[in-house]
């Protein structure tokens, strides 16, 4: 697994959206560390800020609404947030790259797959001749186990299946040997068997290249299958993080607990799956205390008054809950 050499260190990241209706604190003080060769899962429901977090890491948040206000994103010793756009652009795809949610929307419908793949290589290695670019493109396609890669180059995206398209996107993402790969719900738009195969493929690529992966998902099943560590996001903040096994066995945050309980399970028969009462808070002017407090069974007076910072409860396991000892 990981050798615990940090590749990406995010500290106090804050990205807010400025809209007509007010300021949305989409990412509100997020810190985590990603190590070489590991997969970190970021779990949360829709609107928890996980996609905005991913876009903040590559500095492609929607303009002009979103602004990164504070924090640092240090990749191999360089704080990405302090770079000029020109230098940042050179790192996109080559040092840090990303796979988007829907493969059907991710590829440009009017250019061939070969063209779009070659472009990703050429932009970072302009000195390569056409034949060398082609070789690298084919190499990338082989890495994602694409059958008959030569034949795919002249295909247009509409001629391929969803799973094939997502593999093309994967090939594109790793074509310049990035250190960090962010996958934003990469399997949500795929059917279940294709999902499994894709997650396994990411694992294999990781073993071959040592790339560190951030896997964003709303599905604890995906986490169990593909991640080493997991960070749970709620209302713009990380509320708990730690090794996957540890979190599954001993969740120390009521929200994590509730998420785990609301999964369908094979070994327990239930008439109805439990669900979390209420809905996530508005991220415009959130309350000062714990943001989960209004929905929490354990909420006490302190919880609504003061925000609990992340504290270590076991080696590598942190939670942001005043009453974590009572969560079981």
């Amino acid at each position: 697994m990981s050798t615990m050499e940090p590749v990406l260190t995010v500290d106090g990241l804050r990205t807010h959206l400025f809209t007509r209706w007010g300021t949305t604190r989409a990412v509100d003080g997020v810190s985590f560390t990603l190590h070489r060769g590991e997969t970190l899962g970021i779990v949360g429901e829709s609107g928890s800020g996980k996609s905005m977090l991913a876009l903040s890491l590559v500095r492609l948040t929607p303009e002009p609404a979103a602004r990164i206000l504070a924090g640092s994103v240090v990749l191999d010793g360089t704080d990405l947030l302090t770079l000029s756009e020109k230098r940042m652009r050179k790192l996109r795809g080559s040092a840090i790259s990303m796979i988007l949610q829907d493969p059907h929307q991710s590829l440009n419908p009017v250019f061939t797959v070969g063209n779009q793949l070659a472009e990703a290589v050429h932009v970072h290695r302009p000195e390569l001749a056409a034949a060398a670019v082609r070789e690298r493109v084919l190499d990338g396609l082989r890495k994602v186990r694409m059958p008959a890669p030569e034949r795919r180059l002249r295909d247009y995206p509409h001629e391929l299946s969803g799973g094939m398209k997502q593999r093309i996107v994967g090939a594109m993402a790793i074509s310049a040997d990035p250190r960090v790969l962010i996958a934003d719900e990469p399997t949500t738009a795929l059917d279940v068997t294709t999902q499994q195969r894709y997650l396994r493929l990411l694992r294999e690529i990781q073993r071959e290249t040592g790339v560190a992966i951030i896997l964003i998902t709303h599905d604890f099943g995906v986490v169990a299958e593909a991640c080493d560590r997991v960070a749970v996001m709620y209302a713009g903040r990380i509320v708990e993080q730690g090794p996957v096994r540890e979190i599954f066995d001993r969740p120390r945050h009521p929200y994590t607990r509730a998420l785990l309980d609301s999964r369908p399970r094979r070994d327990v028969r239930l008439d109805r799956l439990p669900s979390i009462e209420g809905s996530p808070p508005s991220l415009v002017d959130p309350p000062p205390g714990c943001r989960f407090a209004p929905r929490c069974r354990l909420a006490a007076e302190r919880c609504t008054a003061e925000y609990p910072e992340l504290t270590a409860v076991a080696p590598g396991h942190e939670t942001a809950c005043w009453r974590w000892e009572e969560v079981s």
Partner: protein
Amino acid sequence: MGRYVLLNVIRGILTLLAISVIVFFLARLTGDPIDVLGPENMAPIDEQALRDKWGLNGSLVEQYFAFLGNAVRGDFGPSFKYPDESATSVIADRIPRSLQLGLAGVLLTVLIGIPLGVLAAARRGSWYDRVAKGIALFGQSVPEFWLAIMLVWVFAVQLGVVRTSGRAGWSSIVLPSIVMAVFGIAALLRLFRSSMLDTLGSEYVKLARLKGLPRSRVVWKHALKPAASGPLTFFATIAVRLLTGATVVEIVFAWPGAGLLAYEAANARDFPVVQALAMITSTAIVVMNLLVDILYAYLDPRVRLGQKVMA
């Protein structure tokens, strides 16, 4: 692809046949041309000579097929107004002049309208975008004849930098081509702005940026090409209108092109010339649409084989 082109060609020919029927019978709706154009109390022998000359013998259907047969060979009969010339040769003089003016108009439309629209979308909400929207509103609402007269008044009468009208020297093409282009510029600006906003917000544009491409490359390649097929249809309409002679502009600037000729011929009830112009204009539209269909297939590979399109 060959099949796709062939189908479109056949459709174009059928369209032209339908138009020829309309053109022929519309002209006949005003009655027998002899009654309208021949001298009163004409001797029967003179009338017969005139009928032979203008191809007015036999039933209406026979006349139509005679008209069609001749038209295919480019013969629309002698002009009524200039009896010594054929309608085709009258037009042949004028077409290149209209083409010249129309081409200048089309070039201005494309070279100004598309970049303005692309930049307006790329800098959405900026002062530039607001100015562009103003230009679009002005261009689509200003009447051509008014703009033409205003430009003549300012640049020819007050400043004296160009001639008021006619066709002499390169500078005489400037004002009419600007007037012709204004509407198209405004239309293309708006169409490209809105289709570019769609593509700029797409996931594939986001992915192109994620690959590390410069923003300009993403805008002009990844967003522009898929955005172009929508406005293309409209562009074809504008281009044909400009290339086949813009009547109002040619009248105001006394530009001796096909548009001015159409106006003169209609006034003089010169049916062969009107019919010939109508057929040539229609052919131009059909050919243009064919080109657009082929261009579509180039721009969007999903169009190439109708049956193979997947969602």
